[in-house]
């Protein structure tokens, strides 16, 4: 019986003088888990290790009950894995169909008819049915992102790893992506890294915040939002004492920290909780 979890214990990874992951312990179960963190926090490294693409320098990894250091186990993982890297290596001469077909062959879909049916299915899921025969070089950034998502869905994987899947998608496409993830069968482990805290709020049952290669938070989105409880205010002007402050679309100033003069206390969002946790390092990516 397959162990439907991802276990990471004491994970360390270093690139030259840079520590990407430092003593990371995580247990991730079925459902959608969001991975938040500023640039360089270690999200992509964590996903690459979970995708069996990269080996950690130290620590233990068990994916779906398998040990990726063992060749047979690694094959077992890869047969149940869907992985969308942050930078998919598209060859420009491929059409959208040819690219997904190529990945399907790598995923051992040897019977042509079944493979082509599967390719059409996943391209349809991401709304690319109308451009299947267009060369990748003429597709927009959003379409390429959806193409990368499509290849990760081949074979309905049990472990789905998505590295910034919504980057470059327009609002309608992001909504469609949320529906797509929501329709995943029960028992599937989805781990997605993102800078979009509203994606986490809308999609994820659990959220992990990585800061400087360490796990700074692991819990539900509501628990993350609660980190900012009693610390988020709306005021008419900027207060220099605020830890973080920005002008909202309504023209008021949202403060995090001590209450400014004549301010209204408001309910915190996941973004507020994340900003409280990450501090100014997070503002670059999280506050638009």
């Amino acid at each position, binding site marked *: 019986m397959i162990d439907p979890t991802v276990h990471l214990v004491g994970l360390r990874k270093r*690139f*030259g003088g840079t520590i990407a992951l430092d003593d990371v312990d995580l247990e991730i179960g079925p459902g959608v888990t969001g991975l938040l963190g500023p640039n360089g926090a270690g999200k992509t490294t964590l996903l*690459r290790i979970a*995708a*069996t*693409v*990269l*080996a950690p320098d130290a620590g233990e990894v068990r994916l779906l009950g398998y040990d990726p250091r063992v*060749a047979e186990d*690694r*094959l077992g993982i*890869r*047969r149940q*894995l869907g*992985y*969308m*890297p942050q*930078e*998919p*290596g*598209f*060859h420009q*001469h*491929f*059409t959208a*169909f*040819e*690219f997904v*077909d*190529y*990945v399907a*062959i*790598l*995923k*051992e879909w*040897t019977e*042509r*008819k079944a493979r*082509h*049916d599967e*390719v*059409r299915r996943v391209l349809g899921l991401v709304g690319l049915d109308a451009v*299947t*025969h267009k060369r990748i070089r003429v597709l927009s950034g959003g379409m390429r992102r959806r193409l*990368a998502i499509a*290849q*990760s869905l081949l074979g309905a994987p049990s472990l789905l790893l998505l590295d910034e899947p919504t980057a470059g998608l327009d609002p309608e496409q992001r909504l469609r992506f949320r529906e797509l993830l929501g329709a995943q069968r029960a028992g599937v482990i989805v781990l997605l890294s993102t800078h979009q805290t509203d994606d986490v709020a809308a999609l994820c049952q659990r959220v992990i915040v990585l800061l400087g290669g360490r796990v700074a938070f692991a819990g539900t989105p509501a628990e993350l939002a609660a980190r900012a409880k009693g610390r988020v205010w709306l005021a008419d002007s900027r207060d220099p004492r605020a830890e973080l402050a920005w002008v909202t679309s309504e023209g008021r100033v949202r403060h995090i920290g001590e209450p400014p003069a004549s301010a209204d206390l408001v309910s915190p969002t996941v973004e507020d909780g994340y900003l409280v946790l990450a501090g100014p390092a997070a503002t670059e990516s999280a506050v638009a």
Partner: protein
Amino acid sequence: MTTWHASPDDLAQFADAPHELDPDVAASLELHLLRCADCRAETARVSGEEWSRASWDGVADRIDRPVPSLVERLLRHLGVAETHARLVAATRPLQLAWLAALAMAIGGTVGFARTADTNAPFLVAAPLVPLVGVVLAFGPGADPAGDAGVAAPLTGIGLALRRAVAVLVATLAALALGALALPDLQLKDAAWVVPALALSLGGLALSTWMRAESAAALLGAVWLSALWLSAVPQPKSGPVTELAPLAAPGQITCAGVVVVALATLSRRRHAFAIVRRNS
């Protein structure tokens, strides 16, 4: 607008076994069906939903089927399975653009050799060509699917070796054709073959420890340095085939490198299952 309709029996036979119909009747029915929605609906009814779906699936599959590249077609003619041919042909050194560049480079070297009336440039450069091909096959961006391809079940030493063999065969064949145009061709002008195998397999083996392009740069430097160092002590210039790397000692050493490289590849095959660059 049509004024007549085909009989249900003819439509049923057209759907089930069109080749059994009189060719003129079949052609007439086909033309008629293009214009008559009622008869198309009747055909779908008498033939059943499954037949209709299977027909459309067949059409869609024919339209979607990727057009095989020249190299893929060649591999399939040689008996390689469709899926393996696709995987091997997708690697960059087997793309038409690289093969064209390879042909031009070899042509240029042979042309230079003919102009200078010496085979030395060809014999010095030829072993480096398959090495460059191997680097392009395993260096960054070599696989069309990038990390997603690495994380797939069908990657690893098997695919790496299949691609290496294909790249080697293509480059060695191109070099052999080029060599035929060398001036005053003799058997000793085949001295580049064993070093070429040694450098490319050695590069592949070294790439299990370091980046493929670093391995190629290192081995390329070793090859050129060895030729230069063996040329320096000679009082007067003789044929390049008399230099140690291309003469018997070099051939024996290179054959040894081939054996060691193959053994290393076998022992370190796990290195092909993950990304070997730290980025």
